[in-house]
């Protein structure tokens, strides 16, 4: 099932003109505030009627202005997780969760109540009322409520934006489990590069109402031009790797195709798929294999693309099949005489780790 969106809508000050596809998995709609992310999501949900557009979900047409079709929100079978949760205050958590079931068509095997409650860890909250829940608990209940309405698509409008860092790291593992267990397209609105890097399988970047870049997450994130959209401190590539054997000194091997990465990963089983995020500013480049250096993680790669802006240079490297992004100064780029096709060694100073599948707990492993 794929969501296809194409719409134009005029606001005072901004004209929205977007076109993209969201396949199974998490499609991150990324952009600054005011770039039109929420408008797109509201149009998909049917809460906003765009001037022109066509939205299809699988073989169902949700909107086709050319033919005058508009499916009202309650017939779209879309689970919408709002930024502000929007739980019904007059109902208990259990009643909130079951609210969508009252209206779901009979005879469809919806997500099982116990399964969802278990997935989100909300069993202790069932008989409480939303007024007494913490922000993180509300987010999880809102997520459960959307899931239990048996949707064909999940929309999440910055579900973590209202939470502090601690609550965010409480919810993120649940979202990862969701992505890996539910066979639905998920459209995830965010302006946080870290969230996008951790969750997204597909990235759609919005700039001033237009799609500036769209594609698989690892490609978009490793593209120097679109990476600038994340800001200089947040640009970085994502690598999907499989956990290898652990040496007696506690370091675990992850094979990249351009050499091994050694990370400290206590409690992660061999064979687990891991998603690593390597920030561009944590990668140094050398033209020769560095020797007598404390850094263990040196990858052998090839320069693919060099992009300069405001004295900062972003270099995209091919490391085996994967791509890596390095941020260096203009002077370093000149001293190294970098050019596409050149062989270089990337010294990786730090790696953020998130589990690619359910099971292992999330954590950030920093290795020098």
């Amino acid at each position, binding site marked *: 099932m794929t969501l296809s969106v194409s719409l134009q809508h005029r606001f005072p000050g901004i004209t929205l003109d977007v076109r993209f596809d969201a396949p199974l998995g998490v499609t991150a709609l990324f952009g600054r505030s005011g770039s039109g992310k929420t408008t797109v999501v509201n149009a998909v949900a049917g809460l906003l009627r765009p001037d022109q557009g066509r939205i299809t979900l699988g073989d169902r047409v949700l909107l086709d202005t050319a033919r005058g079709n508009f499916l009202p929100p*309650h017939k779209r079978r879309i*689970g919408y997780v709002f930024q502000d949760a929007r739980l*019904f*205050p007059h109902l208990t958590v259990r009643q909130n969760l079951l609210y*969508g079931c009252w209206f779901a068509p009979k005879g469809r095997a919806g997500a099982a109540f116990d399964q969802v409650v278990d997935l989100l860890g909300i069993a202790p909250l069932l008989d409480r009322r*939303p007024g007494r829940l913490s922000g993180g608990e509300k987010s999880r209940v809102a997520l459960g409520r959307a899931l239990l309405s048996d949707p064909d698509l999940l929309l999440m409008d910055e579900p973590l934006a209202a939470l502090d860092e601690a609550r965010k790291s409480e919810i993120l593992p649940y979202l990862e489990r969701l992505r890996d267990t539910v066979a639905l397209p998920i459209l995830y609105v965010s302006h946080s590069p870290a969230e996008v890097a951790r969750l997204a399988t597909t990235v759609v970047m919005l700039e001033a109402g237009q799609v500036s870049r769209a594609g698989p997450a690892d490609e978009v994130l490793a593209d120097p031009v679109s990476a600038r959209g994340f800001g200089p401190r947040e640009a970085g590539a994502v690598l999907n790797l499989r956990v290898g054997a652990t040496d007696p000194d506690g370091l675990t091997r992850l094979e990249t195709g351009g050499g091994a990465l050694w990370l400290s990963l206590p409690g992660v089983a061999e064979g687990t798929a891991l998603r690593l995020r390597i920030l561009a500013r944590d990668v140094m480049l050398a033209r020769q294999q560095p020797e007598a250096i404390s850094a263990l993680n040196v990858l052998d790669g090839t320069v693919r693309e060099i992009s300069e802006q405001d004295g900062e240079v972003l270099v995209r490297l091919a490391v085996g099949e994967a791509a890596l992004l390095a941020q260096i100064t203009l002077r370093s780029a000149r001293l190294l005489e970098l050019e596409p096709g050149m062989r270089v060694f990337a010294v990786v100073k730090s790696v953020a780790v998130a589990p690619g599948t359910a099971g292992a707990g999330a954590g950030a492993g920093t290795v020098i």
Partner: protein
Amino acid sequence: MLSLRVSFWAVLVSLPLGLFIAHALARWEFPGKQVLNGIVHLPLILPPVVTGYLLLMTFGRKGTVGYYLDQWFGIVFAFRWTGAAMAAAVMAFPLMVRAMRLAIEAVDPKLEQASATLGASKPWVWLTVTLPMILPGVIAGCILAFAKAMGEFGATITFVSNIPGQTRTLPSAIYSFMQVPGGEAQAARLVWVAIVIAMAALLLSEWVSRVVARRISGQ
């Protein structure tokens, strides 16, 4: 006890219409909205005798509407207890609509949107989200209207007069006893009844809206 019956029916019959008009005033934009608002509030500002006179002119047996009601359906309001209920309803209507309108305006439309995305059609959204949220306002409006209907005198006596057993409501009974020499004791008895009923209604409404408010605030 005639007063209780009059007030009860006055509130019951005006409740659906009151909810509808309160909803229209709170949520919809339509031409003539201010005119409708004015008409609803008119009985609050007009001298009650004027309202009673207008009712008599409209719904009296020779009135513009009342004549046809009588000729075609045999329905007569003037000088009947149903007429007293109608006068009470008209006089109490603005209070009822005001309370309900405030309650409806306080409901966050975002919750109704959330309900729609979960598969609820418009009538269901209203029944399962809007109505429970505005319940305290609806109850408050009904109690206010009931109290106003109990005390209604001017429009009632103008429209349906003061016929013992037919249209003699509590206030007009008290008034009548006051006109008779030596009737003060009986008047005082009725005054006490009026006070007890009013007090009971007030306490009941306080209690009900506190319970409901606690429930819907999500505590």
